[in-house]
């Protein structure tokens, strides 16, 4: 039996890697991958802790919903990034800055 703390450590590590990618990467696609890391960290937590919630299985259900919603959000995000590429010929968010104060 793997203790629950191991799952928590892995998910915290995944979350931090994802957050680092979101803050530091210079490509919209890489930022999306970072967001996906953060989502999967949360999903791992949900699945691991639903061991104590066998009857309602809330964590398992939540994990399924989160996976589907993440896929939907990524599909929309990729379509928007494709549109951006059509106008700017780059997907580096630091160079796409026509809107600012």
């Amino acid at each position, binding site marked *: 039996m793997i203790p629950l703390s191991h799952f928590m450590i892995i998910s915290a590590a995944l979350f931090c890697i994802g957050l680092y990618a979101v803050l530091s990467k210079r490509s919209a696609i890489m930022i999306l991958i*970072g967001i996906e890391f*953060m989502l999967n960290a949360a999903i791992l*937590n949900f699945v691991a802790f639903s061991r104590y*919630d066998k009857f309602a299985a*809330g964590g398992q259900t939540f994990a399924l919903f989160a996976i589907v919603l993440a896929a939907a*959000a990524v599909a929309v*995000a990729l379509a928007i990034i494709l549109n951006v590429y059509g106008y700017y010929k780059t997907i580096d968010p630091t160079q796409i800055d026509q809107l600012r*104060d």
Partner: protein
Amino acid sequence: MSEMLPYIAGLLRDVLSGIPHLMPELILACTFIVVILTDLFFKGKDSAATFWLCLTGLTASFAVTLLPSHQSQSGHLIFGNTLFADRLSIVFKQIFYFVILFFAVFVKFSPQFRKHSKGAGDLYILLPVILLGLNLMSMASSLLLIYLSVEMISIASYLMVGYVSGTSRQTEAAMKYVLFGSACSAMMLYGMSLLYAFTGTLNVAEPQFLQRLSQMPSLAGNVAVGLVLVGIGFKLSFVPLHFWSPDVYEGAPTTVTAFLSTGPKIAGFAILVRFTESLSPQGGGMPVFDFQGVLSAVAILSMLAGNFTAVWQDNIKRMLAYSSIGHTGFILMAVIVHSQQGLKPLLFYLLIYAIMNMAAFILAGRIEDQTGAVSIREYKGLGRYMKLEMVCFVVILISLTGLPPLAGFMAKFLVFSSVLENYSVTHSGWLLALLITAAVTTVVSLFYYFKVPLNAFLRQSEGKPVAPVKPDFLSVIILILTSLLLLWGIFPGLIA
């Protein structure tokens, strides 16, 4: 599996007894499917069939909300304690219905959407889903439904901001919105997973939730609640999380901006109220999270940043975006004191805020469509050509400032007096700071709101004169909204 068999009958009975409370939402889900099929096969000219069918579905769902049987049954939790069916959610649903209704009409009359090669049909399809998401946000009591409804609104909003994509700025706004939004919702999801890990339940309203959370080390609990607040804060666009809103409001089609600044924000307040309520211990005890301190700091910063930055803005939509950040800070004051005073000031402010912001953005959009003016400098002399629009605009801006005799004044007055009353009892330093900031920033807001009438009426236009604009159906709606502000400002008792 077999050990669950005895419970199945009870679970089924629970689900069946909840269905009558969920009728408005079920109607919306059916409308969604019917509207998709209609838009595929019987589009009609300008997606007219889709539009009218969509409006019928929305109105039917609203009518069911108003039924006396629906109202009297309210006041408890349904579907295995995952949804609140109470007075509060019904009030919020009524506000949401009118926001979506006006949004639909504005889209119908927006040349940007009518001239678009795809047409506006796909946007009408989104409307029932958005209303469904907003309704669920006002009812949600389980973490799963909070996340689900927030994401429903977010994904639909990303699509709407990027819908036209006619210029590079519009795609840029959509990309900033989707990246910032997904990152915030991922943080919220991680916070929720931590809350689930600490408490073993997804249901915020259960006593077990608060009880187990207060047994955790305070740092762990604070991190988890703080991460969930990040997701809610993105919807509210309060200060550390407001960076997206001026860019998105400026870049998005103005009709969509009118919706973004009202619907999701009001729903965000609904969730914030429920969340703070269920995490505040009844009858004393150590609070798990210092909501009063954190929300007060956020509210003060929002009011300062929103109102002071708005003074430097020249683009009208950017100015309104910063002003709406300032208003968020003001509304947060009502959330901070709501447990003592009831929700009346908050609900009144939200309703008036929805009317004011919708009308202001629609007028900005209309002026842009007719004359091409997007910055306040270009408004010079427009008061002579667009008399009705400019007079309404000035009335709405005075109401946004919060001057009598308009409804904006009554809304601010109610919030202000409830905070003052609370301060005279508790003598909390946070409340005093809030009151001072609110008073100072209201004065500051005069400077930027009054730039519009200054340019429109008191300065001469430099360019060539614009042809006088003929009034149409949209002018009638704007006139109705403006007169509502005047009516409710003088007789606030008319809102039950």
